[in-house]
């Protein structure tokens, strides 16, 4: 059964039709590559799932129940996590502090409530080990490589029992070796039974890690097929419009 189901979703900003009548479903433990040219509506679509925008038309169902989101926080409460393109990290804080940003753990100290550094360091360390990342909880994000920074952003999604993780261009600005690291992180999420949506411009990444590929062009979904039945050439054609629809 689908974890998340979108039926006839549209979004317009004034006269601009950003997303037009898109239906799709996400399965648990499946990586979906979401591809398309700039302005094709990928980000808008993902932002509706993450609670940043409300759809103008159409309905979303989470585990068969209608889902209406007003704010990003509500999406999080429903187990939908997003890794932003710019990662939303604070360089002056440690890896653990970034992982727990906005969800810090506290403990009682007499009448006061103080940050529970020890538990947060330990928990963040566990998540990094689980992700097989070399990132250390106590290191400052300032001193980290692109891959480690991705690991910190992804670790955030594992604090709670996320069922859906949306990733916006996670491999756009990092070195080749680090790309492999990030793709491994994505596989880990998948193996935990999480549905992953991977927005990417990079054909090799999608064909390496994704189970399905969805292509959007000018707000419409023009393809949704298993990776094995498609090819980079076909996807390129769909993105540019050389192939109308499959």
């Amino acid at each position, binding site marked *: 059964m689908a974890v998340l189901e979108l039926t006839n979703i549209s979004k317009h900003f004034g006269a601009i039709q950003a997303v037009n009548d898109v239906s799709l479903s996400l399965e648990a433990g499946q990586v979906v590559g979401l591809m398309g040219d700039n302005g094709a509506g990928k980000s808008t679509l993902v932002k509706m799932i993450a609670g940043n925008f409300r759809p103008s038309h159409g309905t979303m169902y989470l585990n068969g129940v209608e889902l209406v989101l007003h704010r*990003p*926080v509500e999406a*999080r409460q429903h187990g939908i996590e997003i890794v*932003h393109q*710019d*990662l*939303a*990290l*604070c*360089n*002056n*804080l*440690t890896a653990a*502090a970034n992982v727990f*940003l*906005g*969800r*810090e753990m*506290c403990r009682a*100290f*007499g009448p*006061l*409530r*103080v*940050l529970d*550094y*020890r538990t947060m*360091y330990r928990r963040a360390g566990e998540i990094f080990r689980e992700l097989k990342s070399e990132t*250390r909880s*106590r*290191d*400052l994000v300032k*001193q980290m490589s692109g891959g480690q920074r991705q690991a910190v952003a992804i670790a*955030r999604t594992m604090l709670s029992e996320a069922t859906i993780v949306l990733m916006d261009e996670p491999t756009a600005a990092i070195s080749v070796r680090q790309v492999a690291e990030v793709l491994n992180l994505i596989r880990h999420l998948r193996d935990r039974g999480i549905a992953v949506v991977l927005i990417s411009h990079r054909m090799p990444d999608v064909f390496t890690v994704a189970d399905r590929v969805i292509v959007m062009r000018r707000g419409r979904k023009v393809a949704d097929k298993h990776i094995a039945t498609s090819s980079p050439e076909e996807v390129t054609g769909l993105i540019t419009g050389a192939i109308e629809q499959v």
Partner: protein
Amino acid sequence: MIETARRYWDETMTIILDQTIAQKQQNWLTAILGRQTFWVLIAVVLACIFLSFATDSFATAKNLYNITRNVTFIAIVALGMTLVIISGGIDLSVGSVLCLCSMVLAVVMHAGYSIEVGIAASISTALLIGAFNGILIAYLGFPPFVVTLGMLSIARSLAMVASNNTVVYQFGPDHDKLLALGGGAWLLGIANPVLYMIVLALLTGYLLRWTRFGRYVFAIGDNEHAATLTGIPVRKIKVAVYMISALSAGIAGIIQTGWLGAVTTNIGAGMELQVIAAAVIGGANLAGGVGTASGALIGAALIEVIRNSLGLLGINAFWQGTFIGGAIVLAVLFDRIRNFRHSE
């Protein structure tokens, strides 16, 4: 209770040590040597040692009492300023707010009200001004520089209006209480303002290091966009930060009124620059995201020691600005050199 406190202390030390070790991947000595606050502290200590030998009057009980008390007014306001600077903002209005709060206290008490009413009115004034600054900055998107520059002018003008630009030196029925509050030494002969400063510094340190609020202030100062995306109530935190800054100016104003025994409308004039200097010398980064409570204290101490020593050494007071300005540039220069080495 003692057991809890000891565990708390142990944990704190472990964390601090762990952090410094992990961050620099070198030993803890190197980590301490890398802190600007440490070097400024060394400068203060060296200056004190030098002055003890070079002059007869420095290491006297009376002079040390004077220095510690003089440090406090700048230091208390610098604590609030440090929070603002960490959040990536600036508050130019503190000197004028200090003046207005002193004047509100003085006028209310002069009119025959008790010291409690006077302090309540003064603190309320501070919080109101802080909220005004904060709301304009956080909700309406005004640049902090502009809003607080405006408030610098407004608050001092209001102080003149409230007092009709006169000197207030009679504080009604609770006159003696107010003077004792600011001028007394209730504990071990330590001047009261120093006690307040220590308590407030501990409170600020606690806020910054051990609370979510403090964590969010650091996050906002480094990357406001990220803070918003992770669900931090950025605007509320910013308003609170400016309220704390104004509050610290208000508290300093109340104490200073009690110490001086009189209020004029030029009290605290130009103070904002000394306060910002103290915070910056103490390691706060004007770009946001960096700063400590102890740094604010040590920065204020260095400025006061410079001021005091020039007088004792018989150097013309006109040189003060040069030395304090030099200290600012030196402190930040040190930070730049360290960053330079890092990037290499």
